[in-house]
């Protein structure tokens, strides 16, 4: 029996390739490739190399050259890059110059801590920003709206190293609700160590996200379909969720994907303040030591994570808002 075929195989393949999700995925791969190149080049832009730093000021030119060969960072930049890419292709991220430990195993040890910090932070961000943004939109003409506006500006302008110390004083030293510093692995015990660092980052993220949400809800509420829904008699949670919140979420979710990325960079400062042995702290040490393989590995792998998170935010958006899908 004949079945109607929607075009030839080539046609169907072409249509599949044009699918927005696939296109977005291809973009993600391209970004990952650029990331790999940047990770390689950036660290080499900094003056000084690991051989010089390890051998100290008294080392002779010959010693430095010999040591470079030993570390595998000899030869021209292109030839180094070739080796780096072909090793990466085999899943080999190299060995840390300082500790002689596999880069991958260092990342595997340190990244989970930063990941837990990121997840906790984002979870708290959503939990705090969502109700705050909605309330700020609904009550924007009352005292609450004005207080929110001022409070948000003040919090965003406060640097995290300052708010972090204040929070430690308040919650760890005075109230004894959190440890002053340190970390112990294992969920849910680790939350005890993470909630204060996460709150510190949220002092910056929550006001920004709540404001994004507030302004998109305000914008949505002047849309005709909102009044049309009121006129039809739509009320209660249906009205708030379907007509105000859901059509307003797209910018907030996009921002959330981007925020997940910035948490990784906040982590550098936060992990130092709270003495969390995460990837941020490791990265700072690695840069200081010009530990080429370690820096490359951390930048590339945590970058991949960010690319993955933004990709996921896009998918969620496409599901929530069909307008985003057709663009």
């Amino acid at each position, binding site marked *: 029996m004949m079945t109607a075929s929607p075009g030839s195989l080539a046609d169907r393949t072409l249509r599949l390739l044009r699918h927005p999700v696939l296109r977005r995925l291809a973009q993600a791969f391209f970004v990952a490739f650029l990331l790999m190149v940047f990770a390689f080049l950036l660290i080499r832009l900094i003056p000084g190399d690991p051989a010089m730093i390890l051998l100290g000021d008294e080392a002779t030119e010959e010693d430095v050259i010999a040591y470079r060969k030993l570390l595998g960072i000899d030869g021209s930049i292109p030839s180094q890059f070739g080796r780096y890419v072909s090793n990466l292709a085999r899943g080999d991220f190299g060995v840390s110059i300082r500790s002689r430990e596999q880069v991958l195993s260092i990342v595997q040890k340190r990244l989970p801590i930063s990941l837990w910090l990121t997840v906790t932070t984002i979870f708290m961000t959503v939990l705090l920003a969502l109700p705050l943004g909605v309330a700020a939109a609904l009550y924007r003409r009352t005292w609450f709206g004005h207080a929110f506006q001022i409070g948000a500006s003040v919090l965003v302008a406060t640097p995290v190293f300052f708010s972090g110390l204040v929070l430690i004083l308040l919650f760890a030293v005075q109230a004894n609700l959190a440890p002053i510093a340190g970390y112990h692995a294992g969920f849910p015990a680790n939350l005890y160590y993470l909630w204060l660092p996460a709150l510190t980052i949220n002092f910056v993220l929550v006001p920004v996200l709540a404001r994004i949400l507030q302004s998109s809800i305000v914008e949505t509420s002047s849309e*005709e*379909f909102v009044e049309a*829904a009121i006129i*039809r*008699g739509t009320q209660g949670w249906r009205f708030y969720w379907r007509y105000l919140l859901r059509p307003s979420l797209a910018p907030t979710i996009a921002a959330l994907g981007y925020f997940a990325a910035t948490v990784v960079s906040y982590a550098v400062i936060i992990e130092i303040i709270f003495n969390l042995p995460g990837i941020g702290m490791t990265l700072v040490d690695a840069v200081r030591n010009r530990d080429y393989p370690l820096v490359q590995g951390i930048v590339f792998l945590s970058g991949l994570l960010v690319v993955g998170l933004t990709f996921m935010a896009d998918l969620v958006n496409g599901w929530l*808002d069909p307008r985003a899908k057709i663009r």
Partner: protein
Amino acid sequence: MSEIKPLLEVKDLCISFRKGGGRKLPVVDAANLSLNRRKAVGIVGESGSGKTMLCRALIGTLPRHGAGIVSGTVRFDGQELAGAPERVWRGIRGREIGYIPQSSLAGLNPVLTVETQLVESITAAGSLSRQQARQEAVALLEQVQIPRAQQVLQARSHQLSGGMRQRVMIAAAIAQAPKLLIADEPTTALDVTIQREILSLITQLRQELNMALILVSHDLAVIEESCDDVMVMYAGASVEAGPVAALSNAPRHPYTRALRVSRVDRAAPGQDLEAIPGDAASVGSWPAGCRFWPRCALADEDCRRDPQPALMPAAQQLSACIHAERLSELEQ
């Protein structure tokens, strides 16, 4: 025979925008409207005459636009709606009064399917199961003459044409079989061929469901076709009201007459159209006295004095013009 109580009676309604510092900007004053059950009244007037604000007052969404009722009464089915709290409006919107908003091309939520939005309107009234509500939604779409109702039910706003969207909006408005349907310029955003279809659909539904209708338009021809009565608004006030035939054959207000003679469909070929001289009085700069006097050939000293009367009986209709009987002078 006992006097029939009108379904809707608007008396001397005044609406103002609230500006900062307690100042007010009037947009409607002295709006008067009376509508019996199953009858259709048209509201005609230029943009800025307060037609849409009057309609919003009838559905209780003025505060959303920073406006409110200052004085006057709105009696609907024995209930006073002017100044009614939200609780009362919840029982009115959709159930008692259906509303097709102006340029409702953007009236559907772009992230939801037609089904979600229709089912919502249907279930708002009673306790229907999801399956029953779905069947009801299909029936509604068929009632507004949408072909392939099942498919349209799954569609979202951007997948539908303007005419289709308007039909869906109408379906949502009549979902709970309201006693009164308000259509605020239901065809302005559509193309001409579809305008006609939508208007005849509204008329047909009105008869099927025994609804009263308020049809707002700036086009007198549209109203003459589908309404029993007409109310003419100028600069926030009702200037003439009465049966459609009376107003179109023997208007008793210079503005109504001007609207009539400026109509394209009444002009003879080759003849210049008679435009209304001057500009429409805009909100915030209404003249003292009768608002129409700067554009009126009959205007004299009496017309520029405040206060001017509200609607008074004149022939078969009501007119706010103090020179209503001199209108025939204009025909020369």
